Structure formats: C-alpha cells, structure tokens
C-alpha cells in the first residue's frame, strides 16, 4: 500500500489545525463543564444586579469596575480558564486519546496552538457573557465610552494568558484542576493581593492594568489598587510573553510525553 496524500504530499498546517480546533471545541462543549461555567457567570450577573439595586445615586459604573477588579478578574476568569484549558490536553492524556493526534505527520506546536485556540475562545466567550450583562445592569452605557472595550480587552488579554498557563498545567500534571484551583486561590487572590512583589507575577494584575490602560481613567480605581499596576504596553507585553512561553513549553513537552 502506498500512502495517499494531498497533491503537495504535505499536510497543510491550516487544514490540520482547523480539524484539531474543531475537535477541541466540540470536546470542550460536549461535557458538563458548561454547567459550572454558567454558574460562575450567573454569580457575577447576580452580584451585578444586587449592586445595581444598592447603587442608588452613586456611580454604578464604579461598582462595575470594582466588580471586575475583585470578582471577575481574580476569581471568575481564572476558574473559567482552568475548567476549559486544563482539559484541552489534559483529558487527551488522561483518556489516552492523544495518540490520535500525535501519531500524525503534524508538528506538536500545531496541536498545541489549535487546542489553545479552542480553549482560549470558549474562555473568552464565557467571561464576556458574564461581563456584558453586568455592564448593562450597572448602567455602563452612561459611563465613559472606553468602559466596555476596557472590560472586554482586559478580560480577553487575561483569558489568553490564563488559557495558555492552564493548558500547560493540564499537560504537565494529572490533578491540574485541583492544583490550578489552589494556585488561583492562594497566589492570584491571596498572596498577590498582599504583596506587591508577588503581584508582579500575577496574571490578574496585568489584566487589570490592561483594563485601566484602555479605560484611561484612574478615577474608577482606589489608590491602593492603582499602585502595583504597570502601563498598558508593559501589561500586554508581559501577558503575551507568558502565553508564548507556556505554549512553547507545552509544544516541547507534548513530543516528549511517554505513553506508559
């Protein structure tokens, strides 16, 4: 028998990548993860509605930024990313289906990128689906024009970084969900909140810096929250470097996974 391939005799990265992306998207949407994510989204929306009722004459937009700063970015976003991204490659390893992807004439970086694309996309959509109702509930339309883009871009940048980190975690560790949850609760919310040094190693701080940078209005932030925030460009660069590094390590690791 002779292997029959496309006219070029090579696997087109775009075509193979699209196939894995589509497979991963269906895998992520086929489980019951959405129930958990929907519950997290609902939590933010309910809190936003309560704040809207409590706001009275005060600026509800300030509550919106507070909500983003204290709940959406440090809790919701990383947990949603963890739920999806740790499964992207982790479940393939756990369920031993990885061989259906790795024993193909396609490079490991393509598998990682396609998987990452899928889990980053669903994380992004999930966090936006929570932020948008919160935005409208807290009268965001009457706030600065840059408020909505700031929230969406900041959460989006954070989603991309968290997805990359947790995708790597899922590939490296068997109990990625548990270890990821401990990381979020201990590092991202507790230690990074107490220590400025630790904050500089926290995705949350850089995502918040993006919100502030795009918003361009410090009045929405308490002074103690502003202190550790870097500039917009630095934040974007840091998030991009962290994401790229995590994905590069994942691609390197993927080719070295031994199936015992």
């Amino acid at each position: 028998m002779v292997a029959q391939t496309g006219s070029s005799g090579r696997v087109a990265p775009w075509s193979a990548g699209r196939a894995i992306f589509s497979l991963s998207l269906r895998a992520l949407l086929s489980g019951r993860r959405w129930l958990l994510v929907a519950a997290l989204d609902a939590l933010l929306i309910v809190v936003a509605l309560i704040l809207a009722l409590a706001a009275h004459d005060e600026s509800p937009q300030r509550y919106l930024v507070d909500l983003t700063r204290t709940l959406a970015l440090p809790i919701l976003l990383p947990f949603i990313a963890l739920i999806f991204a740790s499964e992207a490659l982790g479940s393939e390893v756990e369920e031993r289906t990885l061989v259906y992807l790795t024993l193909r004439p396609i490079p490991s970086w393509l598998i990682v990128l396609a998987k990452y694309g899928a889990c980053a996309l669903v994380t992004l959509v999930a966090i936006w689906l929570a932020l948008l109702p919160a935005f409208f509930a807290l009268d965001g339309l009457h706030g600065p024009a840059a408020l909505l883009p700031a929230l969406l871009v900041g959460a989006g940048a954070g989603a991309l970084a968290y997805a990359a980190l947790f995708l790597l975690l899922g590939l490296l560790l068997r109990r990625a969900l548990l270890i990821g949850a401990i990381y979020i609760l201990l590092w991202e919310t507790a230690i990074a909140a107490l220590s400025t040094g630790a904050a500089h190693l926290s995705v949350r701080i850089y995502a918040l810096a993006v919100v502030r940078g795009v918003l361009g209005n410090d009045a929405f932030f308490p002074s103690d929250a502003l202190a550790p925030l870097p500039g917009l460009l630095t934040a974007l660069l840091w998030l991009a470097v962290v994401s790229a590094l995590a994905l590069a390590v994942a691609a390197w690791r993927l080719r070295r996974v031994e199936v015992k």
Partner: protein
Amino acid sequence: MNGEGKILLEAQKTARIAALPGHAGEHAAAPTITLDHVSKWFGEKVALSDVSFAIGPGVTTLLGPNGAGKSTVLKLLTGQLRPSSGTVRVLGQPVIDNLPLYRRIGLVPEQESVYGFLTLREFVELAARLHGLARPREAALRAIALVGLNDAAERRLDEFSKGMRQRAKIAQALVHEPEVLILDEPLTGADPRQRLELIALFERLAEQGATILVSTHVLAEAERMGRNVLVLVDGKLAAEGDFRRIRDLMNDRPRRMRVRCERPRELAALLVREPGTSEVRVQPDAIEVETADLRAFALAVPRAARTVGARLYAVEPLDESLESVFRYLVE
C-alpha cells in the same frame, strides 16, 4: 524475521539481526521493522530487555502473556516511547519525532477510548485530514467500508459496542493506506465472525505489501493470523519464526502423543521401554505417551502394535497448538 522458527539461545541473540534476512523464505524482502538490542525500563522496572528482531512485509503476530512487553514494543515502534537503549527503525528510519514517517504508519492502540462525541465518519475523517489526504471524506468512507461498518458511519462512537470501537480504531489506522500497520490487541471484543473478517482483512493488506504487526495474548488468534510469530515472555524475546517450526525445534522437550488403540495396557508396557519415553498413561481405549524422541516413537508404535496384535486407530499430538509452545516458553 527468519522463516525458520527458532528458540533463542542467549548466544544466538547477539549476532541475530545480521543473520536475519527479513521475511526470508516467504517474502525475501528487506526488513521494514527492526529492533536492535532494545531495552526499555520505567524506573526500576524492566519492561523490555535486549530485544532484537527484524520483520518484513506480511502478517507477524507478537504473542505473549499480559505484561510480557508487547505493548511496550508497539509503543516503541510508533514513537510513543523512547528506548532506554538500542535502536528502533521502521522503514529504515528512526521513529522518534519523524513526522514524515508517521504518514506511512497506522496504529490501532490498545486502549478502547476514542472521541465518543464524534460519529464514526467524523473520527476516521479526522485521521484523514491530519494525514493531509486530498479527499478525506471519501478516504474515510472507504476505510469504514473495509471494516464493514458502513451502516454505522453516522452513529456516535459512544453508542458503539466494544467490537465496533475496535473496528472504528482499525478504520482510522487504515484511512491513509499505511505501509506499516501496528495493531495492539485489535480483535478484543469482536465476535467470532468479525474476527474472521478482520483476520481476512489483515491478510489482504499483507498481500498488497503491507507490514502488519499484531499483538495478542490469545493463542488461538495468533494461530489463525499467520505463521510468523514473535514470542515475548517477561520482556525478552523467547522465540521467533513459524510457530510450528518453533515447535519442531524444541527437540529437548518431550512431546505428548495420544495413541488410540486396542489393548492399550500391553502396548504401553512395550512403549515404556523405548528410548526417549519418559511417561506413559494408560486409558481405557488409548495411551498417552511423553517422548523426547519423536522419530523413535513413530517407529516404535507400529512395531509394538504388531507385537501385541493390537489395532491402531489414531496417533495424534496433544501439544501441537500454539498454547503448548507458549506454555513451554513461559515455563
């Protein structure tokens, strides 16, 4: 692999790769799969110890009990594991990170798990797309037809029985028409008719020039699948070649024969005196003899029957099955 079966002695192992002419005698082709002094250990546990063999096109069965190292061999051949020492070559090339080579290999993995949320057609088509086939859907449908699952093409895999999943895994391994097909226990869960059909499929593919390496711990399957056998026991290659010839070469082991006859007690009394006979059991209408010298036994039986005036009804081996070969090797 050598067409002549052989039990491996330690001294034979070192020079064996050079001495083996691929599937000599049957295919006379260059080896397509070669393991040269390959060992694999996981921490303290040795999974494979200095295993060497070379096989060419055709069906070869990798036989051994559970835990013998069969899956380890197959994972080494498909790049899922790296050898701790030694070299693994498929189609003359190293396997690890050799992406162009993966286009020429098909694997049916041991594990049952598949993407349950996909239909069979989607599952096989995914493999076709990842192999860069020009017409993935047509290729997928062709592979599905080969394993006889046309009617189930649009059913989700999580609705499949174990046997159907096995065939789905075979279809995804065949979709790109690989030159080398590696199958880890592919008949698990298949019913008897499906087994026969799959074995016939492997034979057809082999006739077209493919190298097919099938692992099994079920002796009856190995016996049906082809005469070329590699026997792994405790991570070591215990035997290779034609399993019947392997049996013939086991001259140092007594064979058990049953002689159905009249006057079994008198016949037994004579046969027990024959050189090479180590044990004789008398039954109402037969005797069972264990002999280390089959030739002498074959001459002695009619002679003894003439002497006592007994009629012979049948002389038959009791341990010609692969199971007996296997049991001997394990012991």
